């Protein structure tokens, strides 16, 4: 038995475990996507199928649906690990907890955010989104969904010790999502008018960079509180 002292192995191990588990229960990946699709279907049924109307509302609808469907899987990020004691083992590991947390958030994004980015063109089609806005939609989702995972994981970490944390978590997390929503939809709106939307993307990118550094620390202290 040899001791390998690498942060990368830890990251890979935690990441691999979560992704393996998600793929083993495929529903975990498929269900949020289906939910996304159904939410999007509801809008034309409720407000009418006129293409111009839908095209006007498309950025908002796509992003609200994305917010709601990432919420679905959030509760799972730490819940199982908390229940079976793996979380204590992660804390009692000689590596920084924030690194393991980063791996878990990355795994969550791979299984929840990335499929949404890939499916985004289909959803944009359904909503009659202007073709020139397609690039902006995919880009904002690509930068925005990891941000949602980071922010959501803070809420999940804070509520994991509570018996019925699910709804409370949505109440905590949804207000924090608002800035992401504003800049993402404004970027898509701008792109519909064929104007440059790099400003909004830059702000989203800056938020992601801050979250990348700060969120793991916040999440790991939230987890330490939840476990004690």
């Amino acid at each position, binding site marked *: 038995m040899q001791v390998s002292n690498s942060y990368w192995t830890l990251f890979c191990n935690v990441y691999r475990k979560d992704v393996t588990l998600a793929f083993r229960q495929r*529903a975990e990946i498929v269900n949020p996507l289906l939910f996304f699709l159904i939410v999007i*279907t509801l809008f034309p049924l409720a407000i009418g*199928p*006129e*293409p111009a109307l*839908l095209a006007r509302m498309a950025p908002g609808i796509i992003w609200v649906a994305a917010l709601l469907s990432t919420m679905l899987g959030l509760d799972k990020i730490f819940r199982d690990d908390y229940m079976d004691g793996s979380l204590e083992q992660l804390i009692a590991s000689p590596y920084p907890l924030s690194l393991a947390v980063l791996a878990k958030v990355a795994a969550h994004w791979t299984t929840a955010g990335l499929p949404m980015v890939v499916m985004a063109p289909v959803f944009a089609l359904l909503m009659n989104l202007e073709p020139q806005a397609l690039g902006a939609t995919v880009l904002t989702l690509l930068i925005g969904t990891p941000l949602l995972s980071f922010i959501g994981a803070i809420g999940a970490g804070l509520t994991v010790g509570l018996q019925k944390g699910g709804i409370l978590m949505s109440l905590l997390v949804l207000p924090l999502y608002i800035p992401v929503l504003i800049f993402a939809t404004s970027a898509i709106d701008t792109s519909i008018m064929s104007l440059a939307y790099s400003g909004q993307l830059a702000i989203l990118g800056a938020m992601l960079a801050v979250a990348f550094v700060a969120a793991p620390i916040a999440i790991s202290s939230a987890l330490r509180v939840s476990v004690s």
Partner: protein
Amino acid sequence: MWKWLHPYAKAERAYQLCNTLLPYFAVVSVLSIVVGWIWGLAYAPADYQQKDSYRIIFIHVPSAILSMGAYSSMAIAAIVALVWQLRNAELAVIAIAPVGAAMTAIALITGAAWGKPMWGAWWVWDARLTSELILLFLYLGVLSLYHAFEDKKAGGRAACILAIVGVVNLPIIHFSVEWWNTLHQGATITKFDTSAIDPSMLWPLLINILGFAALVGAMSLVRLKNEIMQADKHRPWVRQLVSRG
């Protein structure tokens, strides 16, 4: 009918029946799809209005018909499973669902690819398309419900109930969506009249429908075999079957 049907209630017999039927379905489906596609793509005359784009009809219409056909056979299997407590019928429901979902997906995708050149949009919220999309949700709902259960027996029954609820709901959904669409006066689409179709186009279409029907049958049989084996994997007959190779 009971006397004839009863032996097949046993898993092993049902498995053998699948094996016997499978070659016929497979041969019919491969033959008629190959013939139907070549005929439809290369020999059928072009439509004078839609030109060559209409050739998508040779997969769009069969898959749309079969998406509903598969749902009704799934619902019948579900009723049989619940009324007569036949485990094999339950497994048939689970076996048909993915095949039906695939047909629905094909119908939706080909519809979009046909709609783009004809209506100028990949997707419009027309009554038929919307109900087809909801049909896809129903299929996927049955499947994910079944897979969410740890106990597959309870999962099978739950899936059967959902399938039946769906079949009751389907006409309601269809009519409400139709009503909704006329109310909204949304994108108006002129569908060309399928009844006035020329025999030179009708024949390959019919052959393709036959081929798709046989294909749905064959794929369902393959999946049913898997499901039966999965359900009985601790039984001696499966072990014998496997060790025989």
